[in-house]
């Protein structure tokens, strides 16, 4: 899964040549063999590296504060989100919903890698969520829909229909 995410990120960044990744351990942590130095290990580490290589540092935040916030949510993704149980899911959605009340993106007003990877990580949760729950966590849903439609982000994941109001009949879907 991690490798597909990195591949999607490469596509978003417009990277011409796909990197070759290997994995390590039974958790299949991704590893990028770097030509100029030791290999890089870890989904978040590699993702940040790719963003820098593609000369898109703004994706990591453009102030010291926003940079720390971005890293925080990336860490949240690979710790809390990736290993959460059914019980934890409710807490995660609740917290995120409250957090996103007054924000367009996770880092505030700017689209960053945090949005990309939390989106990738939370996708299976949203897919399994009943329509009513999606309505209950209205800010998460709003944010999710925005990110999945963001140009170039959604590569390896199927779109999730979050809209309740069907303006058109089902034939048009």
């Amino acid at each position, binding site marked *: 899964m991690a490798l597909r995410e990195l591949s999607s990120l490469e596509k978003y960044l417009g990277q011409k040549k796909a990197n070759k990744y290997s994995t390590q351990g039974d958790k299949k942590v991704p590893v990028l063999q770097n030509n100029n130095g030791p290999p890089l290990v870890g989904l978040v580490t590699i993702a940040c590296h790719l963003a820098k290589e593609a000369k898109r540092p703004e994706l990591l935040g453009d102030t010291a504060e926003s940079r720390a*916030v971005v890293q925080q949510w990336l860490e949240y993704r690979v710790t809390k989100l990736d290993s959460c149980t059914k019980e934890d899911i409710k807490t995660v959605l609740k917290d995120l919903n409250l957090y996103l009340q007054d924000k367009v993106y996770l880092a505030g007003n700017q689209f960053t890698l945090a949005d990309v990877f939390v989106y990738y990580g939370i996708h299976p949760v949203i897919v399994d969520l009943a329509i009513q729950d999606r309505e209950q966590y209205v800010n998460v849903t709003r944010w999710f829909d925005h990110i999945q439609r963001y140009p170039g982000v959604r590569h390896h994941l199927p779109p999730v229909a979050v809209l309740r109001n069907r303006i058109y009949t089902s034939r048009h879907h």
Partner: protein
Amino acid sequence: WSVHVLSWYPGFLPQLREVLVKVVPFLSRPTLPALALPSGQYLFSSNAICRYLFEVNGQECSELCDQWLEWEATVLQSLKAWFDRVAAMNACQSAAQKVLQGKGLQGMKSYMQRQPAPQSSQCRETQPCNSNSAEVPEEGGERVVSEEEMEAAALTWSKGLNTCPPATKKQHPILPQEDKRNVLVTSALPYVNNVPHLGNIIGCVLSADVFSRYGRLRGWNMLFVCGTDEYGTATENKAREEGLTPQQICDKYHAVHSSIYKWFQIDFDYFGRTTTEKQTEIAQDIFWRLHERDFLIEDTVEQLRCENCQRFLADRFVEGICPHCSYPEARGDQCDKCGRLINAVDLREPQCKVCRQTPVIRSSKHLFLDLPKLESQLEQWLEKSTSTGDWTANAKQITRSWLRDGLKPRCITRDLKWGTPVPHADFKEKVFYVWFDAPIGYLSITANYTSEWEKWWKNPHQVELYNFMAKDNVPFHSVVFPCSLLGAQDNYTLVNHLIATEYLNYEDTKFSKSRGVGVFGDMAKDTGIPSDVWRFYLLYVRPEGQDSAFSWADMALKNNSELLNNLGNFINRAGMFVTKFFEGCVPVMELQEEDKKLLALVSWELQQYIQLMDKIKIRDALKHILNISRHGNQYIQVNEPWKKIKGGDSERQRAGTVTGVSVNIACLLSVMLFPYMPAVSQTIRDQLNAPPSCINTMLEGNGTFVCSLSAGHRIGAVSPLFQKLEADQIEALKKKFGGQQRSVCGDGEPSGPGESQAGEKVRALKAQKAEKAVITAEVAKLLDLKKQLALAEGKNPEPAPQKGKKK
């Protein structure tokens, strides 16, 4: 909750406030520490807080730091639950108390000594290491030895040595024999132009050497050939730089390689070169056969040619304006700025990097090896070879991915002068491309060794071929070269066993001659550390399965703990007891249960060693040698012969048996050590005055641990085999090879403070690609400072000439 929050307001000192509300407003569960940022955002991740504080203080977080933080958050934190559970257990608490209060680690010593040495996990993954009935314990616990094993070991022991001694000197030329296993070993030909570093050495020649030496002990008929790969652009360029002919460069550097490998005791049967008539003869023969059988395709290729330098330019010798982003210093294969891959012919305003003239596009006819046409034959052969032979996993994987990507025709000719000439009339001014030509070097080098070379190279039914290399050479040995040989249809011997290593790194970085980082072959002997110790350590960290790293601290540790305290200690004690308590003669041995058990344990380790070495698991096999000496040390420790010798008759008998068995184990160890540390092996045998036939008896079959030094055998003078590597010695060596003391001109001279600052400035400017004028001015300043430094040191202030001979 009531909690103290560190609040940060710009312009104010951080204030500690007691807050009576939920700290981070959107989190359901308490999460501390938390940092409220000026913008109103909250940080609830302590790692993120640290990053923020660091950045605000002007310190950047590197990628390595990112990696550690990610590891800490994902891996280390998830261990916390486990840690808390274990820490609560009574057994753990009492064990911790024993260590932390009272005797410290010494308190664990007696428990540790009762445990067997840990099994290597690789051994478990491959085939079952254990061919007999005894159980292999999972973790800890002593290996249970059965009655049958003990009796079998005792029986073998009593058989004694082979009656016929081995041939002391090799009879050249070595040729395949009817009744023997004929093994041909090659190591990837080192490029003559580069001084080999430790990674090159362990990857290729040293690994092949260990296996060859082992094979000879096993009684196989081995031929080990290698040589320098001498043709190609790099040699031509180096020749130009040094003002010599390519042949002179090759002569000079071939000698450098030769002497380095000699120092490392690499026992080639023949170490040759690729620049010989035989190479031309054989390469051209293969070429014609491929041509006659329609496996070559002609095509024209557009290349940039510098009319001034009179040569076609390799990609890295062309610089121009990137056609995509207009960056002015794009190189001929990739633009450094936008990173796009380009073709040299697409560059705008291209320039020859050497003379700055504008090159012209010229069409050049070239020949291509039709790999697609040979693909099915190749696959058929690969299927057989990889399934019946001992290919390393990475070799199989790399080969598979090459095939999966689809084979394309490969160009086998180049517009160069220094190379094997293409004999075809239409390609007169061209030479063979190095990757077509170099592997043929194996054949021509053998042909220079013996005129009967075809008995090895055109004899697949009688000969087994092992190729040793680092993983970057795999595709050429598993795809390109076999295709050439298959297409030539001359019953060539193809590789049966492809042994590829991963990379050896230097400390936490890579070897770099230009930056002065890492130990290169010619420097090893100046460290004062013996060749055998280098061999031992490199083999101990041989990168099988994954990259490994050379570490000075680790080398010292392994030398001191394994060589000195384990191996050396055991062998020395055994010999010393014979000398001191038994007047230098091996005493009578009366084997009891305990001794037979030891023989069985040792025999089992010997068996594992043989099974592993047969499969080139060199690193794992080494561990079994160290296990045996550990068993030996324990055996001596438990039986205390130095005390028993002062006791009554039965006690003295015991002391005699223990001493005798120990010294025989030492003899076994010397044989097992021979492939790894040939000089030490010989020294041990000299000290023990061991009969020559021990060397070819013990590794027969599945392992034959016999009593080679029987009662009454007189040994020689015993002395310590190894020396301790001290911490300050190691520190000094680490500094020397760490690349920090090289000045910007790379000439290895130490720089003064003003000079190194200026050097830094120039480096930084060059890195920023500053204007030439600015660089020139700074370089002038630097040269001036160097002059002043030299004068101050009383040296000749004239700078050394950039070109010309280095004498």
